């Protein structure tokens, strides 16, 4: 009999002479002929070429340093996972179709036309093996935002009907029902009601007027519903005039993750419309990384003009409320480490907010080595956690995160992103790992103190 130490991953992927790994699955949507798929991909790649992307695509030195920043490459040594290689087709299309010397490239055949086989191969590189975490963007000596280019390249892949099946399904469900998990407004209200009873907290729903519109992610509603109660406790304690709305409750944006700007806009507009309808001055986003990117930094661009309200991630809201004395928390006697959601911290600029909250909690805070803006991603962002075929790769990559967390020897691991939390939970189960991811917001909600007025 043999027993396996669950804390260490079994390397089933090492090459063996007699072992041939299974071929990567290429998913397709619709029944477009290959030529049409190529045309769609080209057309929607080209639509993204503006001054910014053009300078990025023209400026790459092929120095390969981005490989050293990418968790997928660092953990596998597979050169295909070099971030700039993931956008090779996008880059090639720019040089062949749009760049200043495109005519010569075409005339002399210097850049090969993208083929359907190329697009199929790149499905794995653009979706399964990139979480759009943007760590590579920080190492690039030219300052190229490679992660941003990956998101844009996904637009062409989506229109070509060449994205991973599971990601397409959740994005489609979100476009049809308003939630990637098919949670309707009524179901949301029902859950909120249940959580209100369970936690003895008032959860306002569908108020006609409110200063604050709070939204949730379906991951929380479904898997971590206590988040709804925690949000309510904090906003109530701060004395806010706030509400949830059944016509604008979903913060996740699978249109953005899958690469469909139309669906992205539709999801964003639901929140914007609900906020405008109630005259909200602030929209408080839940513990979700990509929701922050979708509304805080991309929302106004979907709207076509500046948003008539402020957008705050819940960690920013809590930091502000604690710093201004609107809410108070009891000291927590624990050592804590914090996992930064990439889209909130590194790419979103709200790195300090969580640290302010942690400071107020009075814990023994143990920053991870190269935490904060240089943090290793959980491996599940950018929609990767939804792609089942990517699980073995995601688990392999998670080892970096485990090492980073374990080195802190903290009692408690916290984050402020339900998607990260889901990814951690899954990997914890896979590795039988000791650490359970906790929610920063829930820790605050559990330790609220009454404010003496």
């Amino acid at each position, binding site marked *: 009999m043999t027993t396996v130490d669950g804390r260490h991953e079994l390397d089933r992927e090492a090459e063996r002479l007699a072992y041939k790994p299974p071929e990567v699955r290429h998913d397709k949507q619709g029944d477009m002929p290959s030529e049409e798929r190529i045309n769609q991909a080209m057309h929607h790649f080209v639509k993204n*070429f*503006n*001054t*910014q992307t*053009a*300078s*990025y695509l*023209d*400026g*790459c*030195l*092929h*120095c*390969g*340093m981005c490989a*050293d*920043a990418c968790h997928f*490459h660092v953990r596998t*040594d597979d*050169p*295909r996972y*070099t971030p*700039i*290689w993931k956008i*090779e087709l996008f880059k090639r299309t720019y040089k062949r179709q*749009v*760049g*200043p*010397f495109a005519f*010569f490239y075409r005339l002399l055949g*210097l850049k090969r036309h993208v083929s359907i086989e190329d697009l199929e191969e790149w499905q794995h590189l653009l979706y399964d093996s990139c979480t759009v975490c943007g760590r590579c*963007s*920080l*190492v*690039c*000596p*030219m*300052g*190229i*935002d490679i992660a941003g280019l990956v998101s844009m390249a996904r637009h062409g892949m989506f229109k070509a009907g060449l994205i991973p099946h599971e990601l397409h399904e959740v994005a489609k469900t979100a476009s049809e029902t308003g939630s990637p998990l098919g949670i309707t407004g009524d179901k949301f209200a029902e859950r909120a009601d249940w959580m209100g009873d369970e936690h003895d907290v008032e959860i306002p729903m569908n108020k006609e007027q409110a200063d604050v519109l709070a939204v949730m992610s379906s991951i929380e509603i479904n898997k971590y519903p206590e988040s709804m109660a925690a949000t309510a406790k904090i906003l109530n304690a701060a004395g806010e005039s706030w509400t949830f709305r059944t016509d604008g409750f979903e913060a996740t944006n699978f249109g953005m993750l899958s690469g469909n700007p139309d669906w992205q806009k539709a999801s964003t507009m639901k929140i914007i419309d609900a906020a405008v309808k109630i005259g909200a001055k602030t929209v408080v986003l839940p513990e979700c990384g990509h929701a922050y990117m979708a509304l*805080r*930094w*991309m929302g*106004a*661009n979907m709207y076509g*003009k*500046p*948003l008539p309200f*402020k*957008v705050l991630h819940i960690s920013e809201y809590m930091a502000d409320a604690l710093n201004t004395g609107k809410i108070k928390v009891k000291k927590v006697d624990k050592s804590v480490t914090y996992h930064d959601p990439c889209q909130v*911290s*590194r*790419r*979103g*600029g*709200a*790195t300090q907010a969580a640290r302010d909250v942690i400071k107020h909690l009075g814990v023994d805070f143990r920053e991870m080595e*190269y935490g904060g*803006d*240089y943090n290793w991603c959980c491996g599940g962002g950018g929609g990767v956690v939804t792609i089942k075929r990517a699980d073995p790769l995601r688990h392999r990559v998670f080892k970096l995160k485990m090492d980073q967390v374990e080195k802190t020897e903290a009692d408690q691991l916290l984050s402020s992103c339900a998607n990260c939390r889901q990814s951690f939970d899954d990997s914890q189960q896979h590795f039988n790992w000791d650490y359970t991811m906790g929610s920063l917001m829930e820790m605050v909600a559990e330790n609220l103190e009454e404010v003496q007025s």
Partner: protein
Amino acid sequence: MDLLAFAKGPALQVAAYIFVAGSIWRIVGIVLLKEKVDHSEPRKSGGLMAALKVIYTRSFTASPFKRATLYPKMLAYVQHLGLFAVIFLFVPHIMFFEGFLGFSWPGLPNNIIYLLGVAAVAASIALLVRRLTSPVLKLISNFDDYFSWFVTVLPLVTGLMIPVRMGFRYEDILAVHILSVVLLMLWFPFGKLGHAFLVFVTRGTTGMVFERRGAKT
């Protein structure tokens, strides 16, 4: 017309025209594309200062990446600083620039320039070896990478041959050196060497975009 007269005259002149026109064409080709308007509420003011900040800061490697990128970064520094010194601080080159700019600047002693030139060639060779052996670089490299390397190193090597002579006539080696520079200028606007001016655009853009978010640059 002998080879030196050809190199100094029409060859250099045509190369200069193509160098300038090609570079302008490339920049204009990028700038004329549509501009992305950002309506999001900025956390910090981006603008020119943010661009200048990142143009400067991205010259250095952030701590988490230092160990992994130390070797190629070191080589790249030696290569770039060597090239800069050889091109702009070598007294005969300064005199050449003075011929059409009308002003000059102090140079470095020739021996130091030769030393820096040799170091730049050595670093370039080490970078080429890396490109040929690293699985990542082998995969992502294309004709432009190798040809740009060739046209950059050639003037360094031919220039270093001038004081050594190796049995050739001074005029002939000088002509070959100038022709190698002509080749460099002809290729410069079309390939990756364009990073010499694009670096300001890419770093500057990232500086402005991410600084206004208050994000790490």
